[in-house]
């Protein structure tokens, strides 16, 4: 402890208690680590990293309720704190609440899209989910569903682009989406590729999948880039069936 203390305190800048606490935690000296973290929080009560450190210590001690409190406090200081989100995901996973774990990890992945450990953790959580656990049925009529059904003329039939997006955005996406699917048909026809089945458009933070539902209707599925491409295609296929049902009920 003395050796570690003197090493950390020799750093020229403040907040050395974070490193000291973490090193004590890694050595299994949990009470000493907690003392250091709590002492730091007296001086820096709004420092998310300090709450995160305390969360990790309490989690290691098996004090899940205290760990959750600490990580929630970290998120109050910094709503996008990746360490706290990962911690809460871990505890949810340990409690076999896979849906909550996935939600925390997806949020963390949006904050830190290039963190491969998060993508790996997401895969682990998703693969651990019981096969019988039903996914929520596609909610086509919901603007926040990320499912946009439109016709070949670019008119929106139902749905939207996702949480927080407006009807205007959905209308604009439908208008442009019609041009996109028309072009997809032209490409496959002129290159002799047969009938087009799906089109994936990926950006830094998003993935879009377009599929034909009927000859005159198309579905655009929008998801964050944290969703693997293969899963997005499976989601799109499933949503396409729901869209076909919806069209049949409407006509």
């Amino acid at each position, binding site marked *: 402890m003395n050796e570690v203390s003197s090493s950390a305190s020799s750093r020229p800048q403040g907040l050395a208690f974070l490193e000291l606490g973490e090193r004590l935690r890694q050595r299994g000296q949990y009470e000493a680590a907690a003392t250091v973290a709590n002492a730091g929080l007296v001086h820096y009560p709004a420092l998310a990293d300090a709450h995160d450190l305390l969360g990790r210590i309490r989690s290691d001690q098996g004090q899940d309720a205290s760990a959750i409190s600490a990580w929630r406090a970290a998120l109050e200081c910094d709503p996008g704190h990746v360490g706290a989100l990962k911690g809460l995901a871990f505890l949810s996973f340990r409690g076999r609440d896979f849906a909550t774990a996935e939600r925390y990890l997806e949020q963390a992945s949006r904050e830190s899209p290039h963190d491969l450990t998060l993508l790996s953790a997401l895969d682990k959580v998703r693969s651990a989910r019981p096969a019988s656990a039903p996914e929520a049925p596609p909610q086509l009529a919901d603007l926040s569903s990320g499912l946009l059904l439109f016709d070949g003329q670019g008119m929106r039939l139902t749905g939207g*682009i996702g949480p927080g*997006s407006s009807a205007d*955005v959905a209308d*604009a*996406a439908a*208008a*442009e*989406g019609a*041009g*996109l699917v*028309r*072009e*997809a048909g*032209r*490409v*496959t026809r*002129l*290159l*002799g*590729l*047969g*009938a*087009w*089945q*799906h*089109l*994936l*458009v*990926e*950006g*830094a*933070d*998003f993935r*879009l999948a*377009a599929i034909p539902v009927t000859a005159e209707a198309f579905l*655009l599925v*929008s998801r964050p880039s944290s969703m693997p*491409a293969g899963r997005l295609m499976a989601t799109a296929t499933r949503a396409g069936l729901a869209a076909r049902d919806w069209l049949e009920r409407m006509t």
Partner: protein
Amino acid sequence: MSLERWPQILREITGIAGVRGALIVSTDDGLVIAESAMESVPTSDVAALTSALVSRARKTAHAAHGAAPRTVHLTASEGTLLAMAGPDPLWLVALADPHVELGRLRVLLGDFAVSLA
């Protein structure tokens, strides 16, 4: 990366079983910049059509998310077209059979596309 490396990159891509051709395309004008393809592949057509598709994908992505696409992947019953953005306006494009090792092709194309600069 030097231009001399480009043909080697394209050959590595076409080395994947099922890839019919690989191209570096300028999406500004739809022209082929470099290519390695089977004789049966109409590379000029692939370049022009990919550019048009990327342009449409760009407009849709902007309308939906206000952001630009990096990858456009079209799957059809008898083939697949995969395009990944390099330094603007270049895109790295592969035309492949339906049974191609898609995961491997995506990783390789992604690695090479960013290294075109």
